[in-house]
């Protein structure tokens, strides 16, 4: 009886989960095995694994995959380290501590679309960045129109916008570390720096795992920035996997192929997350 009641009260959530999450997931797995054009669903044909094998021979997707990897490798470590450093700094009682904490966190509250639009103006030929540079006598450029600077520009923006949230997670982790450990260490004559390495970092491992895994997954799925700022250009230098699959699905109407790409991306993210969990010893106690 109790179980039934529980189920009843959970049903709104369970039903929406089934309708808007589980069903699409299964449906797109089926789609990935079909040649499906959304404009003409009656002309659907069976493709088997052809969509998957095609993905491995697609030079544009290869370029997108390399770009995405570049994005992940370029942003995740920097964001993690900077967020950690900021958290450690802001965990002390500094004047204006709240102001800084709020300041670093605010970008998290702003929609990525808005941030992208603002940075698009910032990076423009006659944007604020170039105006500031010209005051220093440095010649500017159209940052998003140069294949060498477009993607790094987007990465920099991503780091700036993401850092506050991960800083907050680290701060929570820091506050959970018992004070006694630091007191005992100081009595034993341990330096501040060695306290960070011997006490702080080991205790932050579980939080770091969350930060790194979540941020990696999010970075593999980078889309909005590209969609708003560059649409994959110039010279496909900012083309990412999710943006590519969006175009396949909604510009070229290759829904089946796009679904196959989505599932391949899922497999990659799943593998990377597993490796990260193993590496950061998921579930093991601190010091274990």
């Amino acid at each position, binding site marked *: 009886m109790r179980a039934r009641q529980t189920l009843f009260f959970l049903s709104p959530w369970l039903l929406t989960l089934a309708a808007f999450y589980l069903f699409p997931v299964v449906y797109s797995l089926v789609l990935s095995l079909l040649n499906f054009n959304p*404009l003409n669903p009656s002309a659907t044909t069976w493709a088997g694994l052809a969509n998957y094998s095609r993905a491995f021979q697609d030079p544009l997707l290869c370029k997108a995959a390399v770009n995405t990897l570049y994005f992940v490798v370029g942003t995740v470590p920097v964001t993690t380290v900077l967020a950690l450093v900021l958290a450690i700094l802001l965990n002390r009682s500094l004047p204006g501590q709240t102001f800084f904490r709020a300041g670093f966190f605010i970008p998290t509250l702003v929609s990525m679309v808005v941030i992208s639009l603002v940075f698009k103006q910032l990076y423009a*030929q006659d944007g604020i960045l170039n105006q500031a540079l010209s005051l220093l006598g440095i010649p500017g450029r159209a940052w*998003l129109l140069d294949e060498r600077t477009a993607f790094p520009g987007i990465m920099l923006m991503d780091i700036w916008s993401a850092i506050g949230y991960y800083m907050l997670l680290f701060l929570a982790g820091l506050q959970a570390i018992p004070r006694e450990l630091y007191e005992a260490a100081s009595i034993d004559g341990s330096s501040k720096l060695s306290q960070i390495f011997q006490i702080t970092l080991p205790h932050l491992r579980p939080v770091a795992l969350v930060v790194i895994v979540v941020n990696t997954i999010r970075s593999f799925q980078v889309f909005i920035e590209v969609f708003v700022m560059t649409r994959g*250009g*110039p010279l*496909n230098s900012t083309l990412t996997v999710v943006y590519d699959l969006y175009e396949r699905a909604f*510009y070229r*109407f290759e829904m089946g192929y796009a679904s196959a790409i989505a599932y391949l991306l899922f497999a990659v993210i799943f593998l990377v997350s597993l490796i990260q969990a193993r590496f950061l010893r998921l579930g093991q106690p601190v010091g274990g």
Partner: protein
Amino acid sequence: MMRKYAFLLILPILLSCAPRDKRQKIVFWQFWEMPVIQPQIEAFEKAHPQYKVEVEQLTWQNGFDKIVAAFASGQVPDLCELGSTWAPQLASEGVLLEVTDGVRPIKETYLMWGPVTVGDKIYGFPWVVGTRALFYNKTLFAKAGLDSTKPPEIWPELLNDAKKIKALGKDLYGYGENAGERHILYKKYLPFAWSNLGSVLSPDSKKAVLNSPENKEALEFLVSLLPYAMIERQDALDQAFKQGKIGLLVSGAWLLRTIPQDAPDLHYGVVLIPKPDKDKGIHASFLGGEMLVIPQKAKNFEGALELAKFLIQEDNAGALAKAVKTVQPATREAPKDPYFSQDPYQKVFLEQARTAVHPPTHPKWVVMQEVLNDALEQAFYKKKTPGQALDEANARIDSLLVAP
């Protein structure tokens, strides 16, 4: 016990919602703001009292995604507005109602059948057209010692004027060239290729002719303009033109709407896009616009047909164009309304639309367009010469044409 019958309480409400309207419903999806379209719908309902039109306004951001979803699920409107870029794909999938016989009497009176024509079959109606023309800044012309009453008519004049204006200063540009995004460059290049009588596909659409001398010459000319150009996205170029930083810019009639608001003091003119030489080529431009189509699964064909024919009438399409300023009616003859013959800018756009060209209607055009775009970027960013880039793209399009 009472609770079981509680639903009876809302029964009267449900009943009062039941349809009493005997008129047939026409579901119409379109992109214009309601104040623009509403008067026409009211006029239609007055003229055809048996119909009731249910208008839904789509947004430019996600309207097309919504149309795709509608076709995928089969929950389609009766009549749907469709941008000319998208129409060929739906038409070639055979999911639109064929209207070939119905439009025969009006075929000669309208422009832009290309996007809805597959072979000899027609799958929709041209409603309004939009094209690009050459905007020029008269103040910068005068500053550069050029005659501001004589805007460039041919390519050498265009290049020369751009050079002279660029020489005025570091922050000033002779020309504005769009770049940086995918799916954009070809719209900027093709007008020059078409002006030089080049094209992407052979007349029978069986072969690529992208590496023709005409096309190579056009790309070389466009690349020769780049040193004097501001290279940016279109919105940034439009902005810079309004700020008086760009001398010559190919842009759309949307500027006619925004310049009076954003830069009322700007001294500017609009002319046809220059042709290669005095006795060579045409003043081509990019022809786009809005089509009206009826999905094959629509519930009310007859009503949708009536509504489409009503909306594309010269007076109605003209009234819409006049209200929004960014488009022109798709009729071949200029509308009788003096607004179109007297407004110096609208006059140019109407004339430009008559020599404007629509990109080839081919089921694989989206992919071809990507190939062309890649080639143009390679040439713009000096990775390849215009000749090499077009040769390679030509081969790639040829292989697309033979692929199943």
